[in-house]
């Protein structure tokens, strides 16, 4: 139970273990999301991605909270726990830090992770526990039938806010970066190829990897991400980040990202700037400023100009590793239970 699964793709299965396929990760349980829900696409992508980890099924565990997305573990053939609202990161933390041989994944939603479980999310992230957190963001409460969520746009009209919601939304990735995240990424439910590449990068990361997945809730918040998915608009709206490349987007590459006068980033017209002015994406920068500025490019209401891909990926020892180091150092002391019970001050009768 001591080796940390830090490079989960490389390690895991014994060389002679049978190669697993997508089918091996599909459970016999009937999937019960609404027809057309974005969760189906995510499930299918995850099922097809898991074999590539090369980790035996029994060493993978999915822990979820409460909400539509949190039914996820039932549909996989790995170990899994469908826990209580907002608390999945806590349970996963206990499991991960006591069982370094496991690959532990958390499945959560915008209500689960950012509202009732906000505290646990930021603390798991700052500790850098070896967890891969998949945050399905549909900007609405689905399971409770359509109330606004902490990522809903201001003024959202729902059953609980007939005159419009009054609270300003979280940008989950800005929040994660503020909580000292070492790995931050974003992807979209219907883009299987992109999601797979992001999941692969997350799996390789030692520590907490948080992946925000924009997920369509076709019942209560349909087309919330239409701007980013519609072939007509997505070219101009999605900023697809590539490590080491200048940040250029638009069907013709006509948009780009440059520094603004306040030290942040802004979108400019490629034709109007020098090539040298275009910011080159680097997820490995020690400071969070670059990744944070990227998260601020998108419009909180419309999601106009939303970066996707890996925004930040840096190395910092995971909580698991630090805890293990302490355990190892402590194990140099003899573990003599009788001596422990006696303490230092005894007398005989």
């Amino acid at each position: 139970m001591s080796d940390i699964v830090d490079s989960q793709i490389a390690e895991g299965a014994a060389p002679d273990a049978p190669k697993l396929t997508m089918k091996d990760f599909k459970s016999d349980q009937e999937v019960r999301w609404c027809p057309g829900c974005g969760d189906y696409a995510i499930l299918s992508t995850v099922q097809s991605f898991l074999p590539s980890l090369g980790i035996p099924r029994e060493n993978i565990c999915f822990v979820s909270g409460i909400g539509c997305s949190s039914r996820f573990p039932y549909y996989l053939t790995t170990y899994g726990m469908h826990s209580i609202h907002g608390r999945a990161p806590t349970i996963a933390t206990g499991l991960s830090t006591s069982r370094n041989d496991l690959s532990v994944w958390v499945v959560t939603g915008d209500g689960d992770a950012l509202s009732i479980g906000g505290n646990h999310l930021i603390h798991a992230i700052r500790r850098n526990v070896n967890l891969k957190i998949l945050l399905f963001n549909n900007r609405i409460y689905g399971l409770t039938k359509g109330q606004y969520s902490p990522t809903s746009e201001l003024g959202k009209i729902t059953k609980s806010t007939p005159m419009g919601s009054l609270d300003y939304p979280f940008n989950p990735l800005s929040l994660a970066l503020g909580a000292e995240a070492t790995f931050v990424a974003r992807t979209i439910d219907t883009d299987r190829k992109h999601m797979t590449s992001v999941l692969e990068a997350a799996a390789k990361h030692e520590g907490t990897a948080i992946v925000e997945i924009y997920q369509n809730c076709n019942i209560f918040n349909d087309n919330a991400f239409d701007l980013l998915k519609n072939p007509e608009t997505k070219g101009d709206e999605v900023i697809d980040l590539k490590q080491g490349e200048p940040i250029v987007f638009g069907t013709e590459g006509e948009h780009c990202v440059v520094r603004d006068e306040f030290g942040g980033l802004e979108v400019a017209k490629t034709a109007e700037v020098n090539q040298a002015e275009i910011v080159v994406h680097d997820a490995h920068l020690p400071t969070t400023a670059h990744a944070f500025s990227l998260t601020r490019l998108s419009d909180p209401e419309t999601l106009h100009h939303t970066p996707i891909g890996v925004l930040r990926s840096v190395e910092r020892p995971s909580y698991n590793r630090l805890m293990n180091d302490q355990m190892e150092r402590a194990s140099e002391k003899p573990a003599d239970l009788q001596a422990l019970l006696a303490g230092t001050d005894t007398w005989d009768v």
Partner: protein
Amino acid sequence: MAKETVQLDRVIIRFAGDSGDGMQLTGDQFTSETARFGNDLSTLPDFPAEIRAPAGTLPGVSAFQLHFADHDIMTPGDAPNVLVAMNPAALKANIGDVPRGADIIVNTDEFTSRAMTKVGYEQSPLEDDSLESYNVHPIALTSLTVEALKEFDLTKKEAERSKNMFSLGLLCWLYDRNIEGTETFLKEKFAKKPEILGANLAALHAGWNYGETTEDFSVRYEVKPAKLTHGKYRNISGNLALALGLVAASQRAGIPLYLGSYPITPASDLLHELSRHKEFGVRSFQAEDEIAAIGAAIGASYGGSLGVTTTSGPGVALKSEAIGLGVAIEIPLIVIDVQRGGPSTGLPTKTEQADLLQAMFGRNGEAPVAIIAPQSPADCFDAALEATRIATTYRTPVFLLSDGYLANGSEPWNIPDVDSLPDLTVEFTTEPNWTNEDGSKEFMPFARDPETLARPWAIPGTPGLEHRIGGIEKADITGHISYNPENHDKMVRLRQAKIDGIADSIPNLKVDDPSGEAKVLVLGWGSTYGPIGAACRRIRREGGQIAQAHLRHLNPFPKNLGEVLASYDKVIVPEMNLGQLALLLRGKFLVDIESYTQVSGMPFKAAQLEEAIKEVIANV
């Protein structure tokens, strides 16, 4: 001048001063010397919740009471024979408990008119005749200390801080205690501060010598060692015993201990202590809140560790939903509640037993858990082992209800031989546990052990047994999600039957009724064991008849409890709440319980219980 030595069979000393005066340390050291000397003893620290409450005020008084004897004793004592009052506030706050004729040592330096006015003394109690019926020893403890330390390169303020060591030295002389242990303690504590070390040692010796030379003390006292059972002893507090018990339990179970905890008075010492024993494979995780603490313990337990969370009442309230999850997924989990005065923040440093019903019912739905309680500081060790046995055997959350009095109080402990501790070996499920009609084997996460009704503990990493669990109702046997009405009814009853069935594994309740003729039974649980026992002794010494029994298991109860209750004319149940056990007993057994309650934040006094019990006896 050789002084006369008077033999006593027992003494109760109370040290009282400002919370900055080091009274707890003084008490601890006197206790250690007394333990080493071989007396039986029992202690009661009593301090304010504030780290440094305003100096010289009544709420700022911190006290430490120690009862020691040449025979076995059960409580820290009711009324002190000696009160050490370091200031007017300490005198005022404690004089009410001190019986006439007792010795009172006062630090006269602190009896300035300002300090006296602060606590409402219009004239000095040392000068009017209000203390006439006590044996008052007015000693200028502060200036004597400063005088003794004039060789040292210390400011006056620094020198004054050693006055607790001066008084400790004096008391050690008075009761014929050694001071070598304290010397060693000081040498370790101040190893890096030789000047402070020297000053404290000098003050300690000066106090001792003062006793030897002053005319004020014409006699010194001797309390012979107690005749305890043979063995190796140490002095131990409830929190320490509980922590060591958990380490021992995990060793005996053969699985690592995982503690998820959030700091809270009076349970934080458990977190501190367990964090020091990583060499035993103990992983301690200080979480962001109470919920995360229990969440981590559940996660670790799911992964095959002994998951433990430690807290006090307000923390339990926050953990309720997670405990319910533990009930639903049927996983071993130990929830330690070191009870304190409530509701809400209540009295963080005071004791109470008012979380019994919270432990019993404080969750949504039918969510039964096992509940046990230790009865004395040292007994916390055994209680930890029993909690582990129940949690791992029955795959259930177990509440262990300690309290502030047990946590901080201490007594001598006959250190057990590790090999004599119960074998708690855990076996995980590693093979399919179900045979289908066609003979094929399968793993069923909710197929139960026919004897214990426990479901299998199959941990992640076990090939072939991959399964999903969760808080949604599960189908019997398969563990699939089920909204079926009959299934839910069945599962609710199965979970209840599993907890009820624990009674098969616990001993019958023993009744202590030496004459066999008692008509009244006094029944207690938890930390009231000491004062109830002492009260019963007093009654029997005078020829009275009283039966005593004490519950370790609060849920389920021992199987013979109903029978025991029925065989007495009257049952009196003293509790530090408004009658929570009494309510459970009345509901379950339809017996007319005489509930006797106190919620002052302080343990019962033996004399008070003696009177209450006698009254019941007189009326049968």
